[in-house]
C-alpha cells in the first residue's frame, strides 16, 4: 500500500492543509531513515497499525499520519527532529493522545513523534522539593511515586491517570486543585527540550525563578510548536494535614454559580470548587456511586484542606455564604474512601458521559461574576440547537466545560453539535472570558482565534513561534487560523 492510496476521513468543519505530494512520494525513504534512528518496533508505518494514531481525545476528527515514531531517548528525538526538519517534513508531537482539542491529531504528510516509551522518573529531590521525569510519564505517576513520602504534584487534570506530563506542558493543563496551587506553568521548574534543528537545550532548573527572559513561561502552553520537551523538572508539594471534599446541593444552576462568585469574592480560596449540573450528577453517580445528592439540580464540590481547625473554620464560612444562596443540601465526606469516590466520579465525568451519548467537551473561561449568566445562556443556546448539555467544570476559576451531547453517527446532528460548540465559545469571549482554560487551542478552537485576538495580537504570537521554528515544521496546522497567517508563513498556505 502506498501512501497516496490512504485516505483520511474528515468531518465537515475544520480544514487541514492539503498534504504535500512531494513528501508523500518520499514516504519510503523517510520511513527507512526513521528506522535507522529508532530500531525495533519504534517506527509504525503500515496502514493498519497507523490507524489508531489518526485521532486523540477529540475523535470527531481523524487524519492519517505519514508514519509514527516512538523514540526511547532524547538523543533519538534530536536525530529525528534534525532529519525531519532537513527534509521539511511536518512533525506532530504526541504525549498520551488524550487531548480534547485535537492537539495530537496528525496530518497525512506529517510524522507523529510519540513520547509513550519515555516514562521514567529520573530524580526525586525532597530537599529541594523537585522531581525530574521523562515527558511521556503520566501526570498521576508523579504523585504516585512520592505519595508514600507525603508529597504530590499539584496540577490534576481530570485525565491525570492517563495524560502525559509533556502534554500537560504543551497545553498548560490545569485541573480541579489549580484554584489554590496554580496550573502547570506555576509548577514547572525546568525542561529539557529538543529544538527543531536537533539542538538539545535545558531551560530553568531546580529553582523557582530563573534570571533573564522567562522562556519556560513561553514553552508552557506552546502546544508543541516550539520544540519537543523530553524531560521536565516539577515542583513537589507537601501533602496537607487533611483534606475534605464537601458537597453543596442547590435547586438551580444560577444559585450555585452565584455562590461560587460570592465565595471567591469574599477572599476565601478553597483548594477546589467544582460544579456539576443535574445531567452531570446522574452520569457521574452511575459510574462512581459516590453518593452525590440526587435531588438537587446543581452541585458544588468544595475541597478544603489543612488542620482540622483550619478546615472547620473555612467550611463554616463557606456554609454561611452558601445559605445566602439557598443551599439545599450540605454533605461532608465521611471517610477517605468516600472522598476518593467523590473525586473519582468528578474526574471520570467526561468518559462516563460516553455511557449515554457521544459528546464534545468545550473549554471556555469566564469571569466569575458572569457564571450565572453564562450558565443560563449555555442552556438556551444548546436548546436552540435541539441538543442536550451536561455541565461539569472548575467553577472556582471560571473554567467552563459544557459537554454537548449528540449522536456522532448522525452527520446532521454532528454538525449541529460543532456549531453549537462554537457559539458557546463565542459566548465565553463575549462575557469577557477566553476560548480555552486548559485544553489548549489545538485544531478545535483554531479558527476562533481571530474572534478572541486581533491580527496584530496573532502576528506577535506567530513571530515568537517563528523564532523557534521558522519553517513551521512543528505541529503546523494547530493554534493559528490559516487566514491569519499570510503568505510568507510556509507549510500552511494551501488549505
Amino acid at each position, binding site marked *: 500500500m502506498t501512501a497516496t492510496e490512504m485516505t483520511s476521513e474528515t468531518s465537515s468543519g475544520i480544514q487541514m492543509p492539503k498534504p504535500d505530494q512531494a513528501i508523500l512520494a518520499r514516504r519510503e525513504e523517510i520511513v527507512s531513515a526513521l528506522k535507522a534512528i529508532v530500531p525495533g*518496533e519504534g517506527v509504525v508505518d503500515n496502514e493498519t497499525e497507523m490507524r489508531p494514531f489518526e485521532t486523540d481525545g477529540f475523535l470527531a476528527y481523524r487524519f492519517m499520519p505519514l508514519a509514527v515514531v516512538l523514540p526511547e531517548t532524547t538523543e533519538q528525538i534530536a536525530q529525528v527532529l534534525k532529519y525531519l526538519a532537513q527534509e521539511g517534513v511536518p512533525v506532530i508531537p504526541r504525549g498520551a493522545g488524550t487531548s480534547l482539542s485535537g492537539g495530537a491529531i496528525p496530518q497525512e504528510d506529517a510524522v507523529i513523534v510519540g513520547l509513550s516509551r519515555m516514562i521514567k522518573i529520573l530524580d526525586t529531590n525532597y530537599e529541594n522539593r523537585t522531581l525530574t521525569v521523562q515527558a511521556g510519564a503520566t501526570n498521576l505517576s508523579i504523585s504516585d511515586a512520592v505519595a508514600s513520602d507525603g508529597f504530590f504534584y499539584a496540577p490534576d487534570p481530570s485525565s491525570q491517570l492517563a495524560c502525559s506530563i509533556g502534554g500537560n506542558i504543551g497545553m498548560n493543563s490545569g485541573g480541579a486543585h489549580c484554584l489554590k496551587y496554580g496550573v502547570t506553568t506555576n509548577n514547572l521548574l525546568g525542561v529539557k527540550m529538543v529544538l527543531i534543528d536537533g539542538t538539545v537545550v535545558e531551560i530553568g532548573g531546580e529553582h523557582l525563578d530563573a534570571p533573564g527572559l522567562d522562556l519556560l513561561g513561553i514553552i508552557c502552553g506552546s502546544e508543541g510548536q516550539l520544540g519537543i520537551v523530553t524531560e521536565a523538572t516539577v515542583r513537589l508539594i507537601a501533602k496537607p494535614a487533611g483534606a475534605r471534599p464537601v458537597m453543596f446541593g442547590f435547586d438551580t444552576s444560577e444559585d450555585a454559580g452565584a455562590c461560587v462568585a460570592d465565595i471567591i469574592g469574599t477572599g476565601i480560596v478553597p483548594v477546589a470548587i467544582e460544579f456539576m449540573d443535574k445531567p452531570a450528577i446522574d452520569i457521574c453517580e452511575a459510574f462512581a456511586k459516590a453518593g452525590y445528592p440526587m435531588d438537587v439540580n446543581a452541585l458544588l464540590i468544595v475541597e478544603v484542606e489543612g488542620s482540622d481547625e483550619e478546615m472547620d473554620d473555612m467550611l463554616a464560612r463557606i456554609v454561611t455564604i452558601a445559605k445566602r444562596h439557598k443551599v439545599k443540601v450540605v454533605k461532608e465526606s465521611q471517610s477517605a474512601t468516600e472522598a476518593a469516590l467523590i473525586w473519582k466520579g468528578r474526574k471520570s465525568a467526561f468518559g462516563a458521559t460516553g455511557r449515554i451519548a457521544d459528546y464534545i467537551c468545550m473549554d471556555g473561561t469566564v469571569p466569575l461574576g458572569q457564571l450565572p449568566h453564562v450558565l443560563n445562556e449555555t442552556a438556551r443556546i444548546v436548546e436552540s440547537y435541539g441538543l442536550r448539555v451536561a455541565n461539569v467544570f472548575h467553577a472556582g476559576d471560571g473554567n467552563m466545560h459544557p459537554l454537548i451531547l449528540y449522536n456522532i453517527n448522525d452527520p446532521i446532528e454532528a454538525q449541529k453539535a460543532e456549531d453549537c460548540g462554537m457559539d458557546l465559545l463565542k459566548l465565553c469571549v463575549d462575557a469577557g472570558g477566553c476560548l480555552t482554560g486548559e485544553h489548549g487551542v489545538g485544531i478545535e478552537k483554531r479558527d476562533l482565534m481571530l474572534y478572541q485576538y486581533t491580527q496584530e495580537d496573532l502576528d506577535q504570537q506567530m513571530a515568537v513561534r517563528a523564532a523557534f521554528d521558522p519553517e513551521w515544521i512543528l505541529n503546523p496546522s494547530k493554534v493559528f487560523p490559516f487566514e491569519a497567517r499570510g503568505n510568507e508563513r510556509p507549510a500552511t498556505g494551501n488549505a
Partner: protein
Amino acid sequence: MQTNFSLAQLADPGVAEAEKILRSCVHCGFCTATCPTYVTLGNELDSPRGRIYLMKDMLENDRPADEDTVKHIDRCLSCLSCMTTCPSGVHYMHLVDHARVHIEETYKRPFINRMTRNMLTRILPYRDRFAFATRLSVLGKPFASLFDKVTPLKPIAAMLRLAPSKIYGKTEFTSPGSFKPEKQTQGRVTILTGCAQPALDAGINKATIELLNRVGVEVVLPEGEGCCGALVHHMGKEHQALESAKNNVRIWHEEIEKNGLDAIIVTTSGCGTTIKDYGFMLRNDAEWAERAAKVSSLAMDISEYLVLKELPAPNDTGEMVIAYHAACSLQHGQQVKSPPKDLLKAAGFKVKEAPESHLCCGSAGTYNIMQPEIAGQLRERKVKNIESTKPQAIAAGNIGCLTQIGSGTDIPTVHTIKLLNWAYGGEKPEELSNIL
C-alpha cells in the same frame, strides 16, 4: 465513537454487539494507563484503546485478520483491567472475544504457532491428558533452554519451565460424589472440579469441600462435568468453547432441577469469569439460553459465597503475614475485590496488599506459554511489588497466578481457601510447612 457498519453486517448478532460496544468508547485513553502491556511496551497499539481501534477497523471493513492486528490482539492478556478503569462502561471482554473468533476464522497462523495452540487446546482442557502431559514435561524440563534458542519454539521452553515438579492423580475430592456435612445442612452447592487445577494442586478442592462441610454446606460433584471452556474461548475457538459450556450447563442444570443448588462454586477465578458469561455466550441459542443464564446467575467465587456464611471463631494461625494477590479474573473479570481480603483478615491473617495490585502477573491462561517475554516482565514486576510488602506467604484465588508467581519467588504461594480451611480447623497447607 463513530462506527460505520452496514445493515447487512449488523444483522449478525455478534457484529451488532461489537458495534454497540465500539459506540460506547469515547477514546479518552484512561484505560491505557492501567493496561499491563501498555505500561510494559509503551505503544498505543498494545493498549486497550489501540486494540479497540484495530478491532473496529478490522470488523467494520469486514477484513480478514492480518498479521499486525493479530500480533497486538495476541499480546492482550484479557486481564480486563481496562474494564475496571473505563468510565464509559466499554465491554472490552465481549469485544475482544468476538474479534478472536473472527481471527480464528479468517487468519492462518504460521505453522509452529498453530501447532502450539492446537496442542494446548487438545491437552489442557482434559484432566487426564493434562496430567499425562505434565508428567512428560517434567522429563523435558532440562531441555527448556534448547527450545529458547529458536524464537518460534520459545513457548515450548516456557511450558517446560512452568511444569510442576509434582503431579496429583485422581483423589476422592475430584471424583463424582456427594459430601455431606456432619451436622444439619444449611445449603447445597456444587464446585467446579476443573481440568488443570486438580492435577496441579488437589489440595484446593479438598480444602474447599472440607471447609464448606464444616460450615454446614453439602457439596456435590455431579458425573460428567468438564472443563469450563475458558482456555479455548480465549483462543477464539468458539465451537469448542460453546461445546464445553453446553456440557456443563446440561450437567449443572439437571442437578438444579433434580436436587436444587444454591450456588455453583468456583475456586479458579479464571474459570469463574467464563462460567458467569455462559448466559451471554449462549444468548442467541434458543435451546440453551435460558438454562445458561440460570447457571451463570448461580456461579460464585468461593470467597463471594463464604462471606455470606457465618463462620466460627478461627483458630490461632500465628498472625501470619499474607500478601493477597488479586487475580485479574477475580478483581477485574468478576469485580470481586474485598471478599477474599475480608475473609483472610477475619480468619486472623495479617493481610498486605502490594503496590500496583491492578496489574496482571502475566499468567493469564496460556499467555505465559504463548507470550513468554511479556509474561516474564510482568512476573518480575509483580514479584518485586509483592516482595516489597515482606510477606511470609502469598495467597491468591487462581491456580494460574499461583504457578506463575511461584515460579519467580521463594516465598510460598498458596490458594486462599487453603489458608481459610486451616484457620477454621483444617490442616495446615503443606506449602507453609517451613513457616512456624
